[in-house]
């Protein structure tokens, strides 16, 4: 077995998962241990757990803020986010052995590809967005686009047999070798996972603090 098979298929997955988990864990702990700031809530805000969960779920799955206040970005952003959600669901159901997982995977890949492409174009050609964008903003979108492209092009998302590889990772005995095109997708995916904790793409974890600790506060 050649080096790349072992490295991408057998080593990098563990490295990337470890960095993702530890990196996000560090970030969460960093914010979690912050001293309580002076009250800085914005009214009105939900006062019950149910109300807060309701707002959270609505925001995550519909991107309501963008819908109401930044409609031009809402659709491409929603498409990209749903693409990512579906890919996560794909992995979950694939591991559970549900055959319909491949439909989630392909749909997720297509949506992530389309959404990231549209957002990239917006950022490149809409002057208002371009003026506030640093190169890293383009890089982040390009990264998502390339991961989605490689995933779709390799056919990995529609391959139910790919499940055995992920199961083998869990049992710490990776089934190798993998087709070459899968390796490209996996390499990009693992690098993306390593990259996330160091970027603002970790906003899904940070949102808890910006909403619950600051915007919604904790009235004594």
């Amino acid at each position, binding site marked *: 077995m050649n080096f790349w098979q072992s490295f991408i298929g057998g080593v990098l997955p563990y490295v990337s998962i470890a960095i993702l988990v530890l990196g996000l864990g560090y970030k969460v702990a960093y914010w979690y241990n912050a001293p309580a*700031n002076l009250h800085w809530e914005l009214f009105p805000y939900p006062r019950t757990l149910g109300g807060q969960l309701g707002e959270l779920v609505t925001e995550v799955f519909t991107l309501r803020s963008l819908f109401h206040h930044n409609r031009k970005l809402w659709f491409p952003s929603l498409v990209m986010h749903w693409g990512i959600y579906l890919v996560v669901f794909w992995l979950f159901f694939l591991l559970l052995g549900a055959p319909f997982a491949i439909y989630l995977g392909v749909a997720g890949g297509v949506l992530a590809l389309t959404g990231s492409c549209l957002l990239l174009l917006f950022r490149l050609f809409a002057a208002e967005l371009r*003026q*506030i964008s*640093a190169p890293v903003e383009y*890089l982040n979108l390009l990264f998502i686009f390339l991961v989605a492209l490689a995933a779709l092009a390799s056919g990995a998302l529609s391959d139910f047999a790919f499940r055995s590889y992920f199961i083998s990772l869990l049992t710490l005995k990776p089934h190798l070798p993998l087709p070459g095109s899968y390796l490209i997708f996996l390499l990009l995916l693992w690098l993306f996972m390593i990259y996330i904790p160091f970027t603002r793409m970790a*906003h899904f974890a940070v949102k808890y603090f910006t909403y619950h600790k*600051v915007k919604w506060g904790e009235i004594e």
Partner: protein
Amino acid sequence: MRKVFDDYRVLSDETLKPDEPRVEKFLQAMKKSLQQRDNWTFWLPYTLSLDTCMKCGTCAEVCPVYLASGKKDIYHPVYRSDMLRKVYKRYFTLPGRIFPGLVGAEDLTEEKLNAMAENIYRCTICRRCAYVCPVAIDNGVIAREARKIFDAIDIAPDELKKNGTQKQAKFGNATGTPANAFFDMIEFLEEEIEDTKGYKVKIPVDKEGAEYLLMHNAGDYLAFAETVMGAAEVMDAAGVDWTLNSPATGINDAVNYGVFYSDVEFTTIIKAHVETARKLGIKTLVVGECGHAFEALKYLMLRLIPPEERPFEVKSILELEDEWIREGRIKVDPEKNPEPVTYHDSCKLGRLGGMYEEPRRILKACCTDFRELTPNREMSICCGGGSGFAIMEKGDFRKFRMETYGKLKAEQLKASGASIIALACSNCKGQFREIINYYQLPVRFAGVSELVANALVR
């Protein structure tokens, strides 16, 4: 004064010292601002906001300055935040040190420092942008933290510091009114009520152990006396045990300009407020019609002063008026205010204070024709008087206020068709007074308490 950012200058040359080297001192102060221990008061929202902006530009879609300026890039909320964020990345983050070009990190120069010092005083910290941000990033807190850093290197507008918090700490009020002049003023207000309303109202001052200590923005006595008289009439009609206080008792001015630019100054003033209230032994500190004072005393104070050290309640005069009207303690007749009245939600009372329904219930009870501005409540557009802007005039700043925030507000006001704009915040009153003049609007402004007093059935 030479141009350092746009066509306006809030900071005088004496304050900004635009040609002196200040970058090193700034970076030292900024380093301190990023330490949890040194800046616990706002460390969390500050660092979250520096780190996690997705650059989606949603904030700009609701920013009054950016929209009213015709979307000038320098007034984009992210442009303003990025002035500090680029410095943060360059000097205080690893990626910014290694790949500055990639992540948008930049060296700080004296010129950039000058521009930043001015631009952070183009935002009133109305936090409309923070309300709509999908990630709840707060450009307002970044502007305020930048002001704190500048203040730490002795760069702050005179109106807020020298003639604001420092004067207030020394004289008891930011207007510099001594006790004897204050007593004369109260006597004059009592006579004025008698002359205009035909009945006598005794205004108690410095009464110890009163149920309610009503503390106004001291500027109201000079600029918006109708509000002060209105509140006195309401207190009198309610028959409650109340008092005003003179500077002889300590602080007799509800304002706290530290809210706008400095936690150190904020703490000094809030402690003086607490000490004064304790000394007088009052049960409830009633904040007059002043938005930021309400925010300071109702919310910002909570984690700063332990509960056992503040043995009194804090309420807005609006809460009391609403309560007393609803329970019939004071009787009002809406026919006495027959003109169309609208209400402007002060950012500090509304978005930052949650006081949306009280003023509306009051005005609906006291006026026959109440109508809303659109948009309102949490999406209310800042009038441009916030952050102390209402008292900033030099460097052609009034024009900035009128041509940005003021322009949007004038359009809103015209569309409402109202002939009275009811206000519950002194900064808003100062700003609307000028908006009405600048745009020649057939409208007058009135304090909520003034309208309640006008509707009183005695």
